[in-house]
């Protein structure tokens, strides 16, 4: 075989291409590594992750786990990672609620409300999210000083150091209240099953919503009163110079949460809208021919079918929100990127810190998409 026939043979040509690619990448990586080693030696930096055990001498004001300025860099980064997860969960919850409401309202026959929601959606999604984050942050920082806090019903206070909310103190008896609460939830699950069965047999509809609401509020409240009110709410009050009691939410968290949830909600509303439009109008007509109310049609007929179209793009919006939460570094909310940046500046271990960022976000992406795939499978249309 001469060289020409090697080239015209599809298999060998494919092999040559792949070998070239691998060699190219290998050479590129070797080049980078050798440069990096020389550069690191020149700068006198050691590589490796052992710096994670060194003491981080900075403070973090929002922490879910024990942390002080004598803790290690590794612990600081874990605190940051947890803070990222906090903002991601808060943002996803709010964005989902706002997004679904906005998406449904945009399809409303009411001309005014659908136009208003359209204006919100179009404005918010065409303006950079970073601009919105900084905007909310500046607004919150320009609130009155602590001494002149604005208050909502004298229990929630707004000032330039954030929002102070009532906190709850749980004493011993409170366990019982929670037990009753979970007991009610379990009972409700069985009531639901029973009422479903009865409806299929007899056609009688059990007023499940009202019963559930009544039981969930009434029984735990009754236990609460009977057991000497074991949970007491620490409502903040105005002191002379400062607010006393309650717990404080930083303006950074609030700004990030507001911006991320409204921004993502605008995208979610579009997804919800197109999902609902994708359900054929015959379904709606059939439902109203059966005499279902519009609200019931939406809940039982349209949304379950629309969800199949909605879930996959919704997943990527959740991921976008999580990734966008890294913009926290611009306003100083102490998420993983923000804390990692501090660690990086103190220790100089740039490669290691940035690799931690990437692994963290890649893991979150994988977990979210795995969960969503599982959910997607569950609600998938089962055809024969």
């Amino acid at each position, binding site marked *: 075989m001469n060289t020409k026939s090697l080239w015209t043979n599809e298999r060998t040509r494919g092999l040559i291409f792949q070998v070239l690619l691998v060699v190219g990448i290998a050479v590129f990586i070797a080049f980078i590594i050798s*440069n990096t080693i020389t550069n690191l030696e020149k700068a006198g930096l050691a590589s490796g992750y052992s710096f994670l055990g060194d003491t981080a001498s900075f403070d973090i004001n929002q922490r879910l786990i024990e942390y002080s300025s004598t803790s290690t860099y590794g612990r600081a980064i874990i605190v940051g990672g947890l803070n990222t997860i906090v903002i991601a969960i808060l943002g996803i919850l709010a964005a989902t609620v706002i997004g679904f409401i906005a998406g449904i309202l945009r399809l409303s*026959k*009411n001309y005014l409300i659908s136009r208003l929601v359209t204006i919100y959606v179009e404005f918010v999604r*065409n*303006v*950079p999210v970073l601009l919105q984050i900084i905007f909310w942050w500046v607004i919150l920082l320009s609130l009155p000083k602590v001494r002149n806090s604005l208050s909502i019903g004298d229990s929630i206070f707004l000032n330039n150091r954030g929002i102070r909310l009532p906190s709850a103190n749980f004493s011993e008896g409170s366990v019982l209240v929670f037990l009753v609460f979970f007991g009610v939830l379990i009972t409700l699950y069985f009531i639901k099953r029973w009422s479903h069965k009865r409806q299929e047999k007899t056609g009688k509809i059990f007023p499940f919503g009202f019963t559930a609401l009544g039981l969930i509020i009434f029984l735990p409240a009754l236990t609460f009163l009977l057991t000497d009110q074991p949970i007491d709410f620490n409502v903040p009050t105005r002191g002379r110079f400062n607010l006393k009691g309650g717990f404080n939410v930083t303006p950074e968290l609030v700004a990030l949460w507001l911006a991320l949830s409204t921004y993502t909600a605008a995208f979610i509303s579009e997804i919800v809208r197109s999902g609902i439009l994708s359900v054929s109008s015959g379904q709606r007509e059939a439902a109203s021919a059966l005499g279902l109310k519009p609200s019931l049609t939406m809940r039982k007929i349209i949304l379950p079918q629309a969800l199949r179209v909605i879930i996959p793009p919704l997943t990527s919006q959740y991921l976008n929100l999580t990734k966008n939460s890294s913009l926290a570094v611009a306003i100083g909310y102490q998420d993983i990127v923000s804390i990692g940046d501090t660690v990086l500046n103190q220790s100089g271990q740039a490669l290691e810190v940035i690799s931690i960022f990437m692994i963290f976000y890649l893991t979150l992406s994988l977990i979210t998409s795995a969960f969503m795939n599982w959910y997607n499978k569950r609600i998938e249309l089962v055809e024969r």
Partner: protein
Amino acid sequence: MTIDNNSNNDKANQNIKPPPANTVGIIGWIRKNLLGGWVNTLLTLISIYILWLVLPPLFDWALLNADFSGSSGKECTTNGACWAWLDQRINQFFYGFYPPDSYWRVNLSLILLLPALAYILFENLPYSTYGRWFALSYPIISAVLLLGGVGLEGVTTDKFGGFMLNLVAGLAGIILSLPIGVVLALGRRSKLPLIRVFSIAFIEIIRGVPLITLLFVAVIIVQLFLPPGVSLDQLIRVMIMITIFASAYMAEVIRGGLQAIPNGQYEAAQAVGLGYWRSMRLVILPQALKISIPGIVNTFIGLFKDTTLVIIIGLFDILGQARLLQTNPDWMGKVDHETFLLAALFFFIICFSMSRYSINLEKRLDTTNK
């Protein structure tokens, strides 16, 4: 037996009454769209309340009570908006620190963008061969215009700023990422396993991490990767990272386009004896790229908004200019809302019109395919 349809219809027509006055015209529209049912009425009332709450104060603030002149924030004494800064600062919002006597170079390269885009997007323009060559050489022309050389005074990239920086970074990202995205998309669908694995890994890793981590890589790490003594301009490093980021997203958009091409097209290209590259270039890609345009435009909108992230690594784009003015002692505390509003409007106008264009295009392409 025959039924005389015509006479029946005539009789019926004589008896038809006009619809009740409250179901047609403006009143009918209001009853149907605003007041049909109590939920609807409630929504209308809430909307009117929101409008009443927002619009008059906004109008008062932005125009009626606003200050339009003055040389510092202290001269803005009304409780309305302070627009006095527009006069001296608007140029910095747009051009950053670019030398004022060279503003025409920025303007010219923006104006030249329009014919370049037109020749790419539309097929039936006069002189289309020259036009295509012009469009292809546009990046070089504008780079020369902006950076200097060939008789023009040199301008270093640290002078770039304001909205122009957003435009330059966004456009460069999108133009450079398109060919890389095509290659990655083809790689992801390739039959050669190593090439496929490499493409998938690249695309998924880049899409899995936030842009800000890539920008950190650009600022801190790229310097480590280069041979000692070699250094790259910061803006160029940032643009490389933005391009890499955009090309991963672009690859997914184009992959969608490739998947939408029916298998018959691939087989037909093979049947007329075209090899892989020629069948891609002459048959598949022209069709795939055409149906990917809406997705490409959407990617561009996202990328364009993301260019504001450069302020985190210390470049002063339009948002950076707004922050500079907000923290300037002369204007502190007076221009927060105004500067944000202006920056937001710049983005809104461009992104909104692009998204309308992409929706239109999507509709047009949709009908041709049916």
